[in-house]
């Protein structure tokens, strides 16, 4: 989000899902779309059926990559170099939309200097993608008008996450592929309502609608509405919070609907931080690994038991309605929070979800016209400034949210951890289709649990041959932080030198070994790159329990089957 905000002034999908099918070029970077955003992938396939060109950049051979006209398999963590290489070709071959660059953007000259240095040949050396492929993709992407760029966690979960996003923004501005239907930059948000949570200010530095905490005007508005003085400094990011908890500076934590013990990198450090806390409150719908460490657990309701709205990846605010009565005294999150607030001496006094929405609309310009009674059919897409506004299907028309779009000169920097003799493999982590996040929910469903019952590591056949393992063998994945034991799954889906482990499994929690490095701006951990070693696990001789068949007389009986010739017939 931070990356897009610095370039455009707001962070969300700039297009609508329904536009995808009519695009001419679809460029997907770092997104396993068919597995993680199947409904979006459906529209992408539709576009391909209608003749669109699909380009996928992903080290893994995902299902969407199988449909790609060009599949770029860059080394994990080299996205900036790849994108700079592409932009270098666009500049070098005169494919820049110079009118757009002049009218709508700033800082092009600085940016050009950096990109000029990254020729396709330089990019090839860093990324492993052939220079000719980089050139071809640049030409396809730049010359077609209805080009849509998509990215997801494969871009953001790096130490250079913000740089990666800014490079994507540079690319769309360079070719003017923004601000029109079917042309734009589209981050695919994963979890249900993660977009809505960000929109409503569940970030340390903004109020709802990305209004800066540091902005005195915005702060004043919220202060007068809430009748309380508000802090002027942004809060801490999650990673900072765990760091200061570990240092003993942070004493109490209130975690709502998150399971950081499983989902955050370097698990043992997270657990250590939590144990240092004086007081931990966890609010969730099921018992999670984190909740097990809590002093107080507040039972929340599930999606089906509450009213409210969810905002999806295309900025569409949609209404959810209670379908079943809450069970076992669980309450909706807003109610728990306002009850707590009451006990702490501040009466919020909300009676229903739509009252909160009303306040959100009042204080949030982009949500100005989003009110429950307007959301009945298909919801509304923000920005929607007033009660008569029909919502916005594509963003940045005529001008960017922040005025001029900004080119950010980005140099390639390697990932925090690189491979060496001791840790020769790049580990990239990710998700599986049949599992959701840390499995607090899907793990309770027999059919889903059956699909992927155990953790595995995807490894290229050549690498597997080199270390002497076959599919199904147990391997120990060792990093500088820890080790886990997983089953090997030998496949050419992952390229040589890179291995993939899904993070959903409690028994083999990959975040015990992932790198704690984070992006300096967005504080997103580098889940996609860390250096590990794989060691085949050979069962020790004494490991299998001995049994009575190994005794001498048992063997004798078996041996005697042959040695008794006087068999009666």
């Amino acid at each position, binding site marked *: 989000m931070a990356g897009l905000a610095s370039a455009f002034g707001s962070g969300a999908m700039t297009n609508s899902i329904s536009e995808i099918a009519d695009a001419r070029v679809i460029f997907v970077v770092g997104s396993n779309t068919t597995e993680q955003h*199947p409904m979006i992938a*459906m529209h992408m*396939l539709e576009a391909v*059926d209608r003749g669109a060109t699909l380009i996928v950049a992903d080290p893994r051979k995902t299902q969407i990559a199988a449909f790609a006209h060009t599949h770029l398999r860059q080394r994990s963590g080299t996205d900036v170099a790849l994108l700079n290489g592409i932009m270098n070709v666009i500049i070098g071959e005169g494919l820049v939309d110079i009118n757009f660059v002049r009218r709508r953007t700033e800082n092009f000259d600085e940016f050009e200097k950096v990109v000029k240095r990254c020729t396709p040949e330089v990019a090839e050396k860093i990324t492993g993608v052939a220079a000719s492929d980089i050139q071809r993709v640049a030409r396809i992407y730049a010359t077609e008008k209805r080009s849509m760029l998509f990215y997801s966690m494969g871009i953001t979960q790096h130490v250079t996450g913000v740089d990666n996003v800014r490079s994507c923004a540079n690319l769309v501005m360079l070719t003017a592929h923004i601000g029109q239907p079917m042309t734009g930059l589209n981050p695919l948000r994963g979890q249900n309502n993660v977009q809505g949570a960000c929109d409503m200010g569940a970030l340390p530095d903004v109020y709802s609608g990305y209004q800066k905490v540091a902005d005195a005007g915005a702060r004043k508005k919220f202060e007068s509405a809430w009748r309380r003085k508000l802090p002027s400094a942004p809060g801490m990011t999650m990673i900072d919070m765990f760091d200061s908890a570990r240092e003993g500076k942070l004493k109490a934590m209130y975690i709502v609907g998150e399971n950081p013990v499983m989902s955050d990198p370097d698990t043992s450090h997270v657990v250590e931080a939590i144990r240092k806390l004086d007081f931990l409150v966890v609010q969730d719908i099921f018992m999670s690994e984190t909740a097990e460490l809590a002093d107080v657990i507040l039972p929340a309701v599930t999606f089906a038991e509450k009213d409210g709205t969810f905002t999806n990846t295309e900025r569409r605010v949609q209404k959810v309605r209670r379908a079943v009565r809450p069970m076992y005294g669980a309450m909706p999150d807003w109610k728990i929070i306002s009850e707590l607030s009451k006990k702490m001496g501040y009466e919020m006094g909300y009676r229903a979800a739509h009252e909160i929405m009303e306040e959100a609309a009042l204080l949030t310009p982009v949500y100005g016209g989003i009110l429950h009674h307007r959301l009945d059919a298909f919801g509304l897409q923000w920005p929607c400034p007033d009660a008569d506004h029909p919502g916005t299907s594509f963003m940045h028309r005529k001008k960017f949210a922040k005025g001029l779009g900004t080119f950010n000169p980005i140099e390639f920097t390697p990932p925090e951890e690189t491979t060496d003799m001791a840790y020769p493999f790049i580990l990239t982590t990710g998700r599986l289709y049949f599992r959701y996040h840390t499995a607090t929910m899907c793990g309770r469903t027999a*059919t889903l649990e059956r699909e992927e019952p*155990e953790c595995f590591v995807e490894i290229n056949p050549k690498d597997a041959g080199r270390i002497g393992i076959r599919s199904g063998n147990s391997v120990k994945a060792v990093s500088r932080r820890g080790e886990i034991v997983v089953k090997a799954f030998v496949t050419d889906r992952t390229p040589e030198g890179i291995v993939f482990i899904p993070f959903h499994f409690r028994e083999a929690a990959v975040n015990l070994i992932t790198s704690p490095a984070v992006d300096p701006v967005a504080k997103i951990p580098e889940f996609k790159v860390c250096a590990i070693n794989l060691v085949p696990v050979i069962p020790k001789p004494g490991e299998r329990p001995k049994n009575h068949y190994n005794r001498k007389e048992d063997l004798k009986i078996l041996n005697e089957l042959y040695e008794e010739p006087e068999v009666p017939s």
Partner: protein
Amino acid sequence: MKSDLVLSKAHLSYWLRQLRKEADLIGPLRSTDGDIVFSSVENIHDIVADCPANLPCQKEFLFPQKEEMYKFSPKGTERPGNHKKRVIFGIRSCDVSAVGLMDTFYGGQYEDDFYMERRKNTFFISIACNRPDSSCFCIGLGTGPFLKEGFDIQLTDLGDRHMVQVGSAKGRQMIKGFDHIFRRPKKADYDDQYEANLSSQSKFEKRITLDNVRRKILAGKVPDSFWEGVASRCFQCGGCVYQCPVCTCFNVVDWKDGGAEKGIRMRIWDGCMFKGFTKMAGNVWPAEQIAARTKRWYFHKLLYWPEQSGKFGCVGCGRCTITCPGKIDMATVANRLEKKD
């Protein structure tokens, strides 16, 4: 056995209201967020009788998504059962045919008592379809838009009145005692019915003959590479299986109440599109390739159903066409196969 009657539209709600005294009346209703679903009818005028043919599905009422089979505890087991009498109003001909197929499957040598119990207590008033969706293709299968047999009661909309065809003992039970609202049809009624059927037939956009497809497969003209191509577009969402009114597979799960020794053995819908479906204990995966799984689904419906019961395991309702994100539904695949040499 069969008999035809005419019912004025003015009397339909009276009739349904009387039936509701004896049983739960289920009909297609618009839910708060606009979807049309089968649910218990409060106000008879809320019934959306002319909703698109393949929106709501009756499968849930005969083969629920989650059915409690046995409750167990240290004291013993108990079978909850379901003896609720239901009249389901407004299902279309394709779904009546689907119920017929389910009856064949769940009956036979080993009769599924859970299904049969529900089936015994369910009465259908079906509608000879006058509003086929663009995805519908029952017409090529003879499972719709109107039926000659297999229904309890079939209604044909004749403008100001309905032709009421009674096709079973259950159907007779539903008209019994209502002589004062039904009358014998006249020639004009039959003429109008014929007209209604003709106009309905002309509304179909898809014409698919599964028989041609079946012959092509049997003749060995469909290579495995074709099924691999189909499977490459499979998202493994299971939508085709869950939406299909003929798909019957289930999983059995024991749910324990906390750590206690009591709990519920239930069966839930399952789908052959999932790789874990055939997984054996000890991590043996017989159908690990998606291609094997999609092929099995099509072969079951196109080859094995006809082999075993003489009918296709598909009624042309078009629900998989609506739901499939990869566009590898029965109609699309059959169309491609029909055109293939």
